[in-house]
Structure formats: structure tokens, C-alpha cells
């Protein structure tokens, strides 16, 4: 009698306790992520400027956004930044990973050096590169001292080129991270495949290009996801390095949103621009998450 009562009690607790324990986090997520998305979405359809104002105005804020030259500069900069940041970061990272995979003496030390920038905040990275790229005292003066007196490097204050300085600092920070991911992937490749290909007389570059890199497709996709995600979110680096300037020439959507919502009293436009960012991320991530979760289910 008593044991069955105990079992029933356990059954009840075991059924409800897990849900109860998960509930606070679930509610936080529901309210603070999904609720806020709706709330922010609603704000983007209102006349809110300096203060939230719930008066509905339809798509007017989106229209203002799309007619704003600064927004399109930010979007264009995001494409330039994301393209070069992802492209160069991947190329450098994969290259270093393959080089390090050649049974290198001192691999541990090199790996540590390549990866440490990832521990720094983007604000630190931005501050450091701002000093080094500073026209007059930084790289330019160094080249002058070395005898290249004609050398000029004023990208930081040149509105045509300022976004490229963000690429320089961004790639420096995250290429080591790509290296770490690919090195882990390379270590997971079966050695026997390599040996078989070598016996067949394939050259090392050919083996990497034809066999090993294709096998690392999942790593490639994860890295691509993360880097594009960092690129879309990038805010700190731009703020610390160029502050979005000169003018608004190195603005990206994240800094545009901040400026509109918090310094220029254009809350509705700010909300609309963040919805555009969300839409971009969702377009990238939802199919990825879907395939990941589905893939896992099939694998189990």
C-alpha cells in the first residue's frame, strides 16, 4: 500500500517538477524575447519619436527608413563589411589551420597566439587599432620612419575608406577563431583516408582541396553562420574604432539603430531598422536551426 502510494507521489512529482523547473526560463524567454519582438514590432508601426507613443501610423516609419540615405549607407557598409570580414577571416583561418596541421613544432604556442584576440572585447580591439591606424602617428609615421616618405594611410578619417578599417580590425580579431574551428575539424578527419590518397600519389594540396576540405562542410557552414551573425550584430567595434564616422560613412545597421533610437529621438525609425535586422538574421538562421534540429532527430 505504502509503496504504491509513494510511486504515485513520485509519478506526480516527476511529471510536473521538470516543467515547473523549466517554467521560469521559459516565461522569461517568452516574454523577453518573443514578447519584446512583438512589442518592438508594434513600436515600429507607431509615431514614437523621443518617447514611446502608441498611436498607429502603419508603414510610415519604414517609409522614412527606406528614404533615409544614412540607412542605405549602413546597409551597403554591412554588405562590404560582412563580405570582406567573412571572406578574409575564412581564408586566413583555414590557411592557418591547414599549416598548423602539418605536425608543427610549437603548435600549442602558435595556436594560443592566434586565438587570443577572441578573448578581447571589440571595444579594446577598436581602441588599439584606432591608435595604430591613426594617420600622422600610427602606421603612416612608421612607414615614413622606415624611409617610405610618400606613404599615406588615412583610411580612418577618409569617408570613402573608413569601413575598410573596421574590416582590418574585425579580421584580426576573429580569424584565429576560424583557425581553431577548422583545426578541430581537421583533427577529426580519418587518417586512413589521407594515407590511401597518398598511396594513390595525390599531392598534399590536392588531398586537402579534393578530400579534406569537402569533408569539413559542416564546420564550414557553422563558421559561416557565426561570422555572418557577428557581422550583422557588430556594434562595439564600429563605435570604438570610427564611431560610425567620419560623418556617418562607416555606419552599420546596428549603429544606425542605436543613433536613431537613443541619441536622435527617432524611436520609430530605430524600431523599424531593428526589425529589418531581425528579418535578415531570421532568414539566415531559421532554415539552419530547422535543419540542425531535424538532422539531430534523425541521428538519434
Amino acid at each position, binding site marked *: 500500500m505504502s509503496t504504491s502510494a509513494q510511486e504515485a507521489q513520485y509519478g506526480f512529482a516527476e511529471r510536473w517538477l521538470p516543467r515547473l523547473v*523549466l517554467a521560469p526560463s521559459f516565461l522569461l524567454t517568452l516574454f523577453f524575447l518573443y514578447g519584446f519582438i512583438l512589442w518592438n514590432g508594434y513600436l515600429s508601426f507607431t509615431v514614437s519619436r523621443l518617447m514611446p507613443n502608441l498611436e498607429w501610423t502603419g508603414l510610415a516609419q519604414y517609409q522614412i527608413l527606406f528614404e533615409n540615405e544614412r540607412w542605405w549607407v549602413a546597409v551597403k557598409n554591412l554588405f562590404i563589411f560582412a563580405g570582406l570580414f567573412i571572406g578574409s577571416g575564412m581564408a586566413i583561418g583555414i590557411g592557418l589551420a591547414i599549416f598548423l596541421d602539418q605536425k608543427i613544432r610549437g603548435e600549442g604556442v602558435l595556436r594560443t597566439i592566434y586565438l587570443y584576440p577572441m578573448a578581447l572585447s571589440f571595444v579594446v580591439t577598436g581602441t588599439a587599432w584606432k591608435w595604430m591606424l591613426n594617420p600622422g602617428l600610427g602606421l603612416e609615421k612608421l612607414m615614413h620612419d622606415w624611409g617610405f616618405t610618400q606613404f599615406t594611410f588615412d583610411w580612418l578619417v577618409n569617408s570613402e575608406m573608413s569601413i575598410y578599417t573596421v574590416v582590418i580590425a574585425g579580421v584580426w580579431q576573429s580569424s584565429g577563431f576560424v583557425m581553431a574551428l577548422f583545426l578541430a575539424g581537421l583533427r577529426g578527419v580519418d587518417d586512413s583516408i589521407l594515407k590511401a590518397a597518398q598511396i594513390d600519389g595525390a599531392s598534399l594540396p590536392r588531398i586537402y582541396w579534393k578530400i579534406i576540405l569537402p569533408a569539413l562542410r559542416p564546420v564550414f557552414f557553422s563558421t559561416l553562420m557565426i561570422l555572418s551573425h557577428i557581422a550583422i550584430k557588430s556594434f562595439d567595434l564600429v563605435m*570604438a574604432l570610427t564611431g560610425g564616422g567620419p560623418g556617418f560613412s562607416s555606419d552599420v545597421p546596428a549603429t544606425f539603430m542605436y543613433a536613431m533610437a537613443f541619441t536622435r529621438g527617432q524611436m520609430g525609425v530605430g524600431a523599424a531598422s531593428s526589425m529589418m535586422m531581425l528579418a535578415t538574421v531570421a532568414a539566415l538562421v531559421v532554415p539552419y536551426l530547422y535543419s540542425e534540429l531535424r538532422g539531430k532527430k534523425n541521428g538519434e
Partner: protein
Amino acid sequence: MANKMGRALLYTLLCLAAFYYLLPLYVMFITSVKDLDEIRSGNLLSFPTSISFDAWSKAWSSACTGVECHGLSSYFFNSVKMVIPGVLISTTLGAINGYVLAKWRFKGSEIVFAMILFGVFMPFQVLLLPMAQTLGWLGIASSTTGLVFVHVVCGLASTTLFFRNYYVGIPDELIKAARLDGAGFWRIFFKIILPMSTPIIMVTLIWQFTNIWNDFLFGVVFSAGDSQPITVGLNNLANTSTSVKEYNVDMAAAIIAALPTILVYVFAGKYFVRGLTAGAVKG
């Protein structure tokens, strides 16, 4: 012969790369120990003739960040006050969530997991405006408590993901055996799961520590004056326009702001890398 040449080339390339990654750290450090005259007369790479840590003490206690001139120390301690509860709370919640989602699945738990997971990717810009209003209503706007709250809410997704993926790898038989012995939900968690969790706890602590310490967006939006974290302090200091720009102080400040995460990287590098890659596999 060709092979030897190849090896030499390989090592040269790798060392050049190491040089490239170390260069900013070297430049930051030597700039921070030069005086301003030497900064102007020398160049980026030139070694200082005399080493002085004046810029460091100025950055720490008397440099101006905007109108105030107290250095970075108060910002540094604000970050400490923010990062400790932020990391501990989000990690604890993540562990419990991961335990439920991996070992106590119920109908709909996969959907809950997917919903939480999206938080890893979400651009936080969407949260800024509603969060600013909510923090105001809760009476914790512009306070360290408010920042801790934001970091806990936004960190839940990654901590839950880490623990869930780790706990999926623990055999179910272990749980079943414990249940036959009469152990319940919490007993299994504390006596079986938690003792096996050290590696993933380390990963999550380090991941959250670097994320929260390095955060700038929430710091700049949700804090004011006496609650601003170090990243905001550094940015204010480096972007304060004064007649004489003190690059040595800026660089000393940057190193101070970076020191805690660098130390974590040096002393817990293995877990740091694991955290990064774990975050990468599905996040």
C-alpha cells in the same frame, strides 16, 4: 631538398602570422609605458627609452571619461559587480534547464528548446527599446541590477544550449538506475549529474564571463554614470576630445579593460577554446 624548403617556408609563414596577431598587443603595451614626447618623436614600433607606468596609474585613477576625471577604477568595479552575479545566475539556470531538456523530456520540451535556442542568434537591437521601458517600470533602469538582469535573460539561451548538449551525452541508463533506487529529480541532479558536470560548468562560466565582461551594447544603452561597465568607460575615455590626446593613457586603459579576460584565457585556455567551439557547433 624541396621538402626542407617547404618546411622553412611553412615556419616562416606561421611566424609571420604570429607576429601579425601579437603586433597590436606589443604596440598597446609599449605605447602605454612611453611618455607623450616619445610617442610623438618615435613611432609605433620603436622601443621606449625609459619605461614609466604613469599612464597606467592615470588610466586607473585620474583620467577623464567625459566630464568626470576618476579614471577607470570605478568602471572596473562596476563590471566586477555585474559579471559575478550575471555569470552565476545564468549558469545555474542553464544547468537546470539543460538537465530537464536532456533528461526529463516531456511533450513539447523540444519546442521549448527550439524557442530558447533562437535567443542565441537574435540581434539584441530588437530588445533594446522594450527592455529600456521594462527596466524603467521595474525600477532597475541605469543600475547594475538592471544590467545583471539583462545579461541573465540574454545569456539563458547559450547556457541552456551548452548544458543540454552536454547532458544528452550522459547515458540515460544512469538516470533509470537511480530512479529504480528511488532517487527523485533533485537527488539525481545533485548526486549524479552535477558531479559529472565540471567540464561544462567551466566552459559555461568562461563563456559567460567573457561575454558579459566584454559587452558594450547593453552597457551603453542600459547604464548611466555610476553603473557603467568598463567597456563603456574605456570607450568614453578613448573618445573624449581633449586638446592633448594621451595615447599612452588610452592604451593603458585598453589593457586594463582587457586584463580579466586575457587572464582567463591564459589560465583556462583549454576551457576557453572548448567554450568557443562548443558555442560554434550549434550557436
